[in-house]
């Protein structure tokens, strides 16, 4: 008997794109498009159960086995280092983790660098490699304000087009790592639902490779 696969989708634009890929691969779920307040949607025939969660929480649901698979940005995987399998690079939701600062910024190496970010682990690993002493300011959003108000010298954040930076007179100065969405799987689900998850991963891989 085929087992249901629980899929954690990231709320928002990326999640919609991911859902479209899953649907194109035969894992459709009509009820998910109805307007209501339901949180969990399933299609028994296709063998999938979807639920929307906050993008940064996808890896938690997967790591703890509430979701068998999910789609999470590489930024989240790098920041939280969840113990999950990273099965495929979907090559969507592409952006980069970058250091940005006010235009004309000059790094004064005599002083501790103040870094505002949502990603303290990525930022500290990046500067530790350079041996630079930093002071991390953990923020939860609107990171761009920090250097404008002189609370921080630089920011470490996701840069997609750079428009927000430009409009606030900021500019990216260094790329830390390119980011894209990854198909992740719980390590134990991968074993007990191996046939179902392998099939799904293969369908998605084939679909995405064909589109490249």
């Amino acid at each position, binding site marked *: 008997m085929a087992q249901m696969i629980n899929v954690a989708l990231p709320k928002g634009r990326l999640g919609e794109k991911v859902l479209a890929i899953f649907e194109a691969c035969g894992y459709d779920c009509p009820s998910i498009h109805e307007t209501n307040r339901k949180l969990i949607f399933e299609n028994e025939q296709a063998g999938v159960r979807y639920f929307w969660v906050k993008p940064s929480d996808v890896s938690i649901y997967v*790591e*703890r*086995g509430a979701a068998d698979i999910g789609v999470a940005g590489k930024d989240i995987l790098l920041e939280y280092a969840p*113990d*999950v*399998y*990273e*099965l*495929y*690079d979907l090559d969507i939701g592409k952006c980069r983790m970058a250091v940005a600062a006010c235009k004309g910024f000059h790094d004064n190496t005599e002083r501790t660098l103040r870094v505002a970010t949502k990603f303290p682990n990525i930022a500290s690993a990046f500067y530790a490699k350079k041996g630079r002493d930093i002071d991390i300011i953990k923020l939860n959003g609107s990171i761009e304000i920090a250097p404008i108000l002189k609370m921080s010298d630089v920011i470490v954040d996701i840069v997609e087009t750079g428009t927000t930076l430009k409009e606030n007179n900021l500019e990216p100065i260094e790329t830390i790592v390119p980011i894209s969405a990854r198909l992740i799987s*719980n*390590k*134990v*689900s*991968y*074993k*007990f639902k*191996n046939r179902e998850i*392998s099939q799904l991963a293969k369908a998605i891989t084939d679909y995405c490779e064909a589109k490249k």
Partner: protein
Amino acid sequence: MSVVRFTNEEMAVMSLSSLYARYGFRQFKMSKFEEYDLYAENKDFLLGSSVITFTDTNGKLMALKPDVTLSIVKSVSDTHLNTEKVYYSENVYRVDKGTHQYKELMQVGLECIGDIDLYSLSEVVMLAKKSLCEISERNILDISHMGFLNGLLDETKLSDKQKSAVIGYIREKNTIAIEQICADNFVSESVRKALVLLTGMYGPFSMKIDELKKVSCNTATDNAVKELEVIYEFLKACGCENGVNIDFSIVSDSGYYNGVVFQGFIDGVPTSVLTGGSYDNLVHKFGKDAGAVGFAVYIDLLERLMGGDKAYDVDVLLVYDCDTQLSVLAKALDKITSDGKSVRAVTNDNGNIKYRQRAEIVNGEVKLYGSDD
């Protein structure tokens, strides 16, 4: 109906201990504390987990055990016995990755240290599989071999740091990153193919071992395959070959494991419940020319398994009042408990206790209300 309801953890500890004792392992009882130096000297083995330390009455820095294996290896390597087979059930203290707080964890496991022949090695793997079967029928034992992986990596010119990155990607089953690192470092086509194969490999032992053989490229990898085959033959002879898979994503980047490594999984528990392998390198570090193999079962992970929520606190709630004679009450309690039911006597039922049946004492006799199923 039995009054005594053991929790999953208690039952697991009992059945595992008796399993190990049946195969001639003797129990090893340890002190809760260990000198901190032991862990400072073997940091790599613990993979960076923090240790709770305190100063004892004569000023020595002590630690609450984060691990049992080190203490056993230390004590055994001092006594110079032939082959020591021990099992243990102990609490260890570690930092939880998610909450960054210390946690007390229950471990049951066994270690076999000394002259490890193929029988001893196979026996430990067999006991690992049997341990899983004691816990649940829905179990999987994943097995792989550090000797194979290291043999393969020796064919490359990767630095130690890059090798440990490769192991990290294998643990994630991240084939794309493996392709990338091989391309960046001019890894030969055959080794690249083998590494990609290892990363994606998952399936029953009998089906995957031939794929491994095909990419075996030197004596180290050949020997590893041979060892795996012997172990599997032994498992088959013991009737526990079902649900044994080859999976390289369970390899550890701790330098202490050198041979076969394995992990056990139970359907319904989101992480591995059993880890083990042969760790000759650790024993060598303690100055003994011997081998070692062992595993540990993480008992606390079984808490959420099976049974679900308990529906009742007691079988019978016996309500009495101040007029009830104590001798009558005692007789009533005796009658209910001798029927194999649990009972709680209260003066008034305030709804806090969930019960199957309610009992009252009428004219000196116990009267039960409600069904007992």
